[in-house]
């Protein structure tokens, strides 16, 4: 595990209206971890990711990606949003959507060429979707759509990956396929940060975890801090109950 800090969050406070959604978050994520963010619904997990990516303005505090503000580090970051944020009827194919991941490195005006296409096909192959490359995206199942979005993040070739509930509404095969790819990313030295709901699979999938519920409760290796104490602090109820919910 690298000793560099990939993401540093300092004193972050966010409110949509008057109630704080995130309260004084201090958090540092070391490079090369596969990390879950856990917390009950409305804990501010999506908000945390969005504020790290500058999509939401915080009231106070700051975020650094490898020591610099996000706007200077866009090319180092890939983000897979919570599902349902695009129009699936859009006239475009699976391959086309994946290719969009390469646009960032191209910059304005320049068109994607053979190199970008090759990268995108490789990414499609990695997520097991090569056979569907010419499918219109509305003709894909929920799990397949999620894989396409993952492939798109892969071609961005970022250093840090953010994913908001990638397992939502996907079948078990897809879930395993996705987690295997995430594990591969970590092996390649990438930092992967995933909002996750299923507490039971945390020890199996992740090596690092953040507990969040408006306040930051704990961050560390799963084997050290994934325990009843932190779960109770986060969910306000007994760990066993939380797992069964």
């Amino acid at each position, binding site marked *: 595990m690298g000793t560099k800090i990939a993401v540093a969050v300092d004193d972050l406070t966010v409110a949509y209206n008057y109630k704080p959604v995130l309260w004084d978050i201090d958090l540092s994520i070391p490079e090369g971890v596969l990390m879950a963010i856990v917390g009950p619904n409305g804990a501010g997990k999506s908000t945390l990711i969005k504020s790290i990516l500058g999509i939401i303005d915080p009231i106070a505090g700051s975020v650094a990606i490898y020591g610099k503000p996000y706007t200077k580090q*866009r090319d180092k970051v890939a*983000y897979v949003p919570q599902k349902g*944020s695009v*129009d699936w009827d859009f006239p*475009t194919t699976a391959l086309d959507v994946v290719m*969009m*991941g390469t646009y960032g490195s191209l910059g304005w005006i320049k068109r994607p060429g053979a190199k970008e296409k090759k990268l995108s096909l490789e990414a499609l192959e990695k997520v097991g979707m090569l056979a569907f490359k010419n499918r219109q995206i509305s003709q894909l199942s929920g799990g397949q759509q999620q894989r396409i979005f993952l492939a798109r993040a892969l071609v961005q070739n970022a250093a840090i990956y953010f994913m908001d509930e990638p397992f939502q509404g996907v079948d078990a095969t897809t879930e395993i396929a996705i987690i295997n790819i995430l594990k591969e990313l970590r092996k390649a030295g990438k930092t992967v940060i995933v909002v996750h709901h299923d507490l039971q699979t945390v020890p199996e999938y992740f090596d690092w975890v953040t507990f969040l519920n408006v306040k930051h409760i704990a961050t560390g290796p799963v084997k050290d801090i994934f325990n009843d104490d932190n779960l109770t602090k986060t969910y306000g109820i007994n760990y066993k109950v939380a797992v069964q919910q």
Partner: protein
Amino acid sequence: MSPMIDIQLIATVTAAACAIPGVFLVLRKMALISDAISHSILPGIVIGFFITHDLASPWLIIFAAFSGIITVVLVELIQKTGLVKEDTAIGLVFPALFSIGVILIAQNANDVHLDVDAVLLGDLVYAPFDRLIIDGADFGPKGLWTISVILVITLVLLLAFYKELKISTFDVGLSSALGFSPVILHYGLMSVASVTTVAAFDAVGAILVVAMMITPAAAAYLLTTDLRKMLLLSVLFGVGSAIGGYWFARWLDASISGSITTVLGLLFLIIYLLHLAKD
């Protein structure tokens, strides 16, 4: 060239110039913004006329396009407050601006020879007679030149920023994450749509502009799942209906813009029925 060919040329070029921004408006679920723009450019035209005293001045197009942009900005401001549903904002803004235009015209009826009917409905019949004459040489109808320049600019912009338009239309989040400002692209598109609307409505009227922007795109959207093909098909449908509509109007001896709209409508109806039959 005869007026007959001139009219068909103007209609054809206008149809092509409208179809391109139309595709992106439909995909962005902003089809109705074209309706709003086509109405609210009226006060811009009137005010532009007060300043220039020349209905043919290119400044008029600038003024009118500017009031198109103001419409878009106002709609967005209202949407941002969250006080009403998104589409309500459109319906609140454009009738108010249009009313201001109508009142300005009525108040200055002696100075402004603008007819609200003509604004709404336009008339291609007169378009060929306003000619571009340089040093005594006749270069054809002015309207044809204006809309052709706009079509060329639209095409250049489309070719240059195709990728950016596509990504910001499909996924705003990714677009901004990758550094393609959705705001810039949005206003770029809106500017093109406004300028096209102004130039087109002079010849074909406000309502036909809306039909020419939305209908070809909607019909093409029912037929293809490829954005390039959708753009090509829309231009084709627009151009075809323009020529077909012209001859239909001659045969019926009725309004050309009404007739082009009707042909567009029939075209859409057929494709719609085919689509229903397919499922």
